[in-house]
């Protein structure tokens, strides 16, 4: 260990000592709730990758659109949080299917790089279309709670965190139910494993892929709204960084693996929050990318992945 590492080690140790247990619990809850936003976005990345092997770089922009729909619904049209959330999910689902049908469907048999470039193009198109119609300025989200925190067993927790966590957990349970128990969920798993064999069952592969985009985009839409609630603002480029982080979360969990995206997202949220809590808030965004580099070097298949998995 060199001198500078020593210094870093001690400053981390000092920082850890400075934060009390209760505060740690608080930070953990904050981390998990932030992480659940990443997880919701990561699920769409991972489901789409699982079924058509495409990294949908426009996914972060669907998230952004969700954030704006939530804003307009709550501020301009006076809707409550839950109706706004549902509206954002429905419209994003439709939007996701349109993107898939217009931009990606015809590229199914072309090279991966062509599809990837298209995805980046779609991403830019969405961002600048939003800027064109309403400008690049941010919009402020309303405060949902007058009293910001509640105290449970001596731990102060922000109500926003609890709300985000509750919404995410409900959506993830719902997703698990759809994927594991319903007919369309089984079809999605079948198509992601072997599309031709799925055709032989009479499964309509195109519709199944669209359903995957619809579900993934609805989750991103929901994430956009709760992100707006968490950070209290939305802007046309808000999807870029969370989108990249969610991508990291998906890779961390093992791309294509649904529980992997959930765990990867939560883990990333906790790591980021702890990095900030320790006083390294400037390193917060870097944490995700350091994790990405480490995972690509040491375990490219991700936490839940089998080591035979193909990489982009």
């Amino acid at each position, binding site marked *: 260990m060199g001198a500078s590492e020593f210094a870093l080690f001690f400053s981390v140790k000092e920082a850890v000592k400075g934060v009390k247990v209760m505060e740690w619990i608080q930070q953990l809850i904050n981390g998990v709730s932030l992480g659940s936003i990443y997880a919701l976005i990561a699920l769409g990345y991972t489901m789409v990758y699982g079924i058509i092997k495409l990294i949908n770089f426009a996914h972060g922009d669907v998230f952004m659109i969700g954030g704006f729909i939530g804003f307009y619904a709550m501020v301009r049209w006076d809707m409550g949080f839950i109706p706004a959330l549902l509206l954002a999910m429905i419209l994003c689902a439709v939007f996701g299917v349109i993107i898939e049908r217009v931009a990606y469907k015809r590229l199914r048999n072309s090279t991966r790089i062509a599809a990837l470039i298209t995805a980046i193009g779609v991403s830019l198109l969405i961002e600048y279309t939003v800027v064109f119609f309403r400008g690049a300025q941010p919009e402020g989200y309303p405060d949902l709670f007058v009293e910001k925190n509640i105290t449970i067993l001596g731990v102060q927790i922000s109500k926003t965190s609890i709300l985000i966590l509750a919404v995410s957990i409900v959506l993830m349970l719902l997703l698990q139910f759809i994927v594991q128990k319903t007919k369309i969920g*089984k*079809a999605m798993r*079948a198509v992601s494993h072997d599309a*031709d*064999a*799925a055709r*032989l*069952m009479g*499964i309509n592969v195109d519709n199944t892929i669209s359903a995957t985009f619809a579900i993934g985009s609805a989750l991103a839409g929901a994430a956009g709204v709760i992100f707006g609630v968490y950070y209290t603002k939305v802007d046309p480029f808000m999807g870029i960084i969370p989108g990249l982080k969610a991508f990291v979360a998906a890779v961390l969990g093992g791309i294509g693996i649904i529980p992997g995206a959930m765990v990867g997202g939560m883990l990333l949220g906790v790591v980021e929050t702890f990095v900030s809590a320790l006083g390294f808030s400037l390193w917060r965004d870097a944490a995700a990318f350091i994790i990405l580099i480490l995972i690509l070097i040491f375990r490219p298949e991700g936490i839940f992945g089998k080591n035979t998995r193909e990489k982009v």
Partner: protein
Amino acid sequence: MLKVDDIDVYYGNIQALKGLSLEVNEGEIVTLIGANGAGKSTLLQTLSGLQKPKRGSVEYLGESIAGKAAQSIVKAGISHVPEGRRVFANLSVEENLDLGAYLRKDKEGIAKDLAHVYELFPRLLERKKQQSGTLSGGEQQMLAMGRAIMAKPKLLLLDEPSMGLAPLMVQNIFTIIETINKEGTTILLVEQNAHMALSVANRAYVLETGKIVLAGTAKELQESDEVRAAYLGGL
């Protein structure tokens, strides 16, 4: 029941089937034998809608099905058990069987057929909650066949069901093929194991590089010198 007339099928510029014709009558077991690369799988894929013929016609129960989507062909009553089983490894045995009945809505009929599949293949019942990727090759073949039966087909297409299986398992699979046929399902059986295939079939075709070169009753082909020399190891 099935009438294939003079079809050409291409992969890009490579022609895999060259003016192929054959017929399958209701209630029969018809086998198509031929070496690796002859075009057997291509034919089955064309029948089930995964490949489209460039020329020629495919008639099933009096209707043209050439170039139709796989979905509507399954609905019309043709089920295809593909080469290499292609079970959904990430799904359980029972989920695979459920997917076999994907287009059916008759809950009672499905439950009855599921019970029947488990009767035909008791091993699948024992392993119904197991991930199908963990099954042995023979069990996966059973699952692939059970899954196809769940669609309640009138015509079952089997692509090399004996491939890679131990002799005892091959026996077992062929016995079940005969049972399925006796229960009323017509079968088109593709095999490299000509010996086994000819022993269960009524009629047979021999395919070489995309063309039918011989046709006849199974008995005739078993006795033909060409077939003996080329496919029965001179037995």
